[in-house]
C-alpha cells in the first residue's frame, strides 16, 4: 500500500449528499478480476453521457460538461470534497480503487458510510471527517477560488488551508500508523499467529460445532 504522510493537492467539490458506491463505480465494471484500471469509470454515469460498458476504451466517449471532474480547472485534482454519508451502499472496494486509480489521495466529508471508510485505508486513500460548517466553508472557498489547494498533514492530523488555517481531524491510531508507513495489514496480523492459534484452540473446545466440515 502507498504511504501517505503530507499531501498537498487541488480540491474538487462534489456537491451532493449520500453519494453511493453504485454511483462511484457502477456494477458493470465490477466484473473485472483486477484491482487496477477503475479510474476511467469513476462516477461513470455522472461523467459520461452514454452508457458505459466493461473493458471499453473511454477516450472517445461523450463527456457530461456539467460534471465537476470534467471541468478543466479540476484536471489535476487529488482531494475530493464531498457531502454527508459519502460511500453508502455496497461494500465494493472497487469504489476506493476507482478513486485512487483516478488520482485521489483524500476525500473530505462531514460523514462517511462505515464500510467505504474502512476500505479507503486499505488503499492509501485517506477519508477525513470535518464538521458540516468546515465542509460548507471549504465548498464556498473551492467554488470561488480557482486552483484551490489544501495540504493534508496526517502526522499532525490537520488540513491546512491556503490562508494557513488548520482544521484538525480524528483518526484511529492503528489506521494512522498503517497509512503513514504504508504497512501490510495482513503481515501485521500474522505476526500474532501464536495468539490467534491459541484463541482458536480455546474457541474450538468451547464451540466444537463451529469447526465441522460443510458438505
Amino acid at each position, binding site marked *: 500500500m502507498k504511504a501517505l504522510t503530507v499531501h498537498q493537492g487541488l480540491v474538487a467539490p462534489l456537491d*451532493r*449528499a*449520500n453519494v*453511493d458506491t*453504485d*454511483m462511484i463505480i*457502477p*456494477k*458493470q465494471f*465490477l*466484473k*473485472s*478480476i*483486477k*484491482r487496477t484500471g477503475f479510474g476511467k469509470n469513476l462516477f461513470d*454515469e455522472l461523467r459520461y453521457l452514454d*452508457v458505459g460498458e*466493461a473493458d471499453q476504451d473511454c477516450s472517445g466517449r461523450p463527456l457530461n460538461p456539467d460534471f465537476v471532474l470534467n471541468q478543466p480547472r479540476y484536471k489535476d485534482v487529488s482531494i475530493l470534497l464531498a*457531502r*454527508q*454519508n459519502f460511500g*453508502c*451502499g*455496497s*461494500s*465494493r*472496494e472497487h469504489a*476506493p480503487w476507482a478513486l485512487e486509480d483516478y488520482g485521489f489521495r483524500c476525500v473530505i466529508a462531514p*460523514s462517511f*458510510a*462505515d*464500510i467505504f471508510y*474502512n*476500505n479507503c485505508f*486499505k*488503499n492509501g486513500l485517506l477519508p477525513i471527517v470535518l464538521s458540516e460548517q468546515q465542509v460548507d466553508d471549504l465548498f464556498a472557498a473551492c467554488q470561488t477560488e480557482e486552483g484551490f489547494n489544501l495540504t493534508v498533514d496526517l502526522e499532525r492530523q490537520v488540513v491546512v488551508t491556503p490562508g494557513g488555517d488548520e482544521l484538525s481531524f480524528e483518526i*484511529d*491510531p*492503528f*489506521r494512522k*500508523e498503517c497509512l503513514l508507513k504504508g504497512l501490510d*495489514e*495482513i503481515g501485521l*496480523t*500474522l505476526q*500474532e499467529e501464536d*495468539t*490467534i492459534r491459541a*484463541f*482458536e484452540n480455546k*474457541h474450538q473446545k468451547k*464451540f*466444537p*460445532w*463451529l*469447526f*465441522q*466440515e*460443510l*458438505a
Partner: protein
Amino acid sequence: MAGRTLYDKLWDDHLVKSRDDGSALLYIDRHLLHEVTSPQAFEGLRIAGRQPWRINANLATPDHNVPTTLNERNAGIEGIVDPVSRIQVQTLDDNCDEFGITQYAMGDVRQGIVHVVGPEQGATLPGMTVVCGDSHTATHGAFGALAHGIGTSEVEHVLASQCLVAKKMKNMRVRVEGKLGRGVTAKDIVLAVIGEIGTAGGTGCAIEFAGTALEDLSMEGRMTICNMAIEAGARVGLVAVDNTTIDYIRGKPGAPKGADWDAAVNYWHTLHSDVDAVFDHEVILDAAAIEPQVTWGTSPEMVAPVGASVPDPDQEADATRADGIRRALQYMGLSAGQALTSIQLDRVFIGSCTNSRIEDLREAAAVVKGRKVAETIKEAIVVPGSGLVKQQAEAEGLDKIFIEAGLQWREPGCSMCLAMNADRLGEGEHCASTSNRNFEGRQGFGGRTHLVSPAMAAAAAVTGYFVDVRELMGDAA
C-alpha cells in the same frame, strides 16, 4: 456491572486480542465468498505466497453474475453469454479448486444467493461471526450471529488469518412493538425504520431489532429486516435467538449433531441482550401504525406509505435534503404531490437477498393467484434465492401460479437487484422491486426502482400501478 447487549456478548466471545492502539483482532467463524469481491483477494494470497488459514471456515457460491434464464443456464459456466461475467464466475471456480474451498457451483441445486444459501445450509449458526465481501451480510444477524460486509482487502485478510482488525461499534436498538396489520410484512417494517432513522441513522452502530413484532416474525422475515440494516447505515443487524431460530436450524445440513446440538442450544439460549443492558441509541416503532411502503426516490430513506404522495422539495426546510428530493424527482420522473398509486410500472422484480426466500414467494403467489399480469407490464420476473428455494416452491406449485398469471419463473441468482447479469431495466423504466437499493442506475442505466414487499410487488404486477395490497386480499387473508 451493567448487563451486556447481544452484540457485546458476540464481540466478547470472538475477541482474540485488544491492542493498545484501540483496535482489536476478532476471530471469524464463517467466511462466505462469491465471484465479484473475491478474485483480487485470492490473487493477493498468491502474490504473497499465503495459504488460507482454515479452509473449512469458507463457503463459496456464484450469484451476482449468473444468468437466470434456463437457456443460458443449461450449459453451465460455458453458457454465460457475457464474456466478462463468464471469466469472473470461472475465476471463482478455479480459485475454489486451487485452494480446496467448498463451492456450490452453477448446476448444484444448493447454488444461490450467498445470503440465502448460508442460512439454508446451516452454514450460518447463532453465535457465529460471519463475514462476506458483500454489504448484505447483515442478513445473517437474524440468527443472533455477528455478521457484516467487508471489502476485498478484508476478504484476503480473513482468508489469510481467520481474523479481522475491528473496532467495536455502538449499540443501537430498534424496537417494533405490537401486531402488524394485515398485508403488512417484514419488508414494510424495515422500510419504515429506514424512513424513520434515515440511511445514515445507524452509521457506526450494530442495530438489534427487537420487540413483539420481531418476536412474531419467521426467520425469513427477520432476515429481510437484518438484510437492510446496511440501508440504515449499520453494518450489523441482529435479532436475539429464540425458539423460532432454533426450530429453523434443526435438521439443516450444517446444524450441530448429537451432544453438540444440546450444548449449542444451551449456548444459543444465552444469545440475547440482558434486561439491564444499555444501548447508545434506541428507537421505538408502533407495528400497528406501519402501512405497506413504497420508495419514491433514489435512496431507501425516500419512502412513504402507499396511500401517500410524493413529497414537495419546496416544503423541505433543510437545503441539502430539498436538493436531494429535487434531484430524485427529476431522476425518477415524478412530480411533487403526485399520488404513489398513480405511478405506472413497466417491470416487476421479485427476488434478491432481501426477498427471495420461500415465504416471500408464497406471499407473492397468494396475491397473483387467479389474476393476470397487467398488459402494460413489459416483464415481471420471479427469481428464487437458491436452487433449493426453487425446488420447494415448485413442490408447492408456486411456479405454476406465477406462470399462469404471466410472470416468468427464473433460475436462482442476484439478478435484477443489481443487474450484473442480463436482467436489467431500460432507461426511464419504473420497476416495482423487492430488492434493497433504489440508487440511480442500480437496476440498469436510467432505471427507476421502487422498493416494496413481495406482496406489494405482486399487486403492482397484476394492476400495473402501485396499489394497496390490502385491497386485493380477500377477507380471510
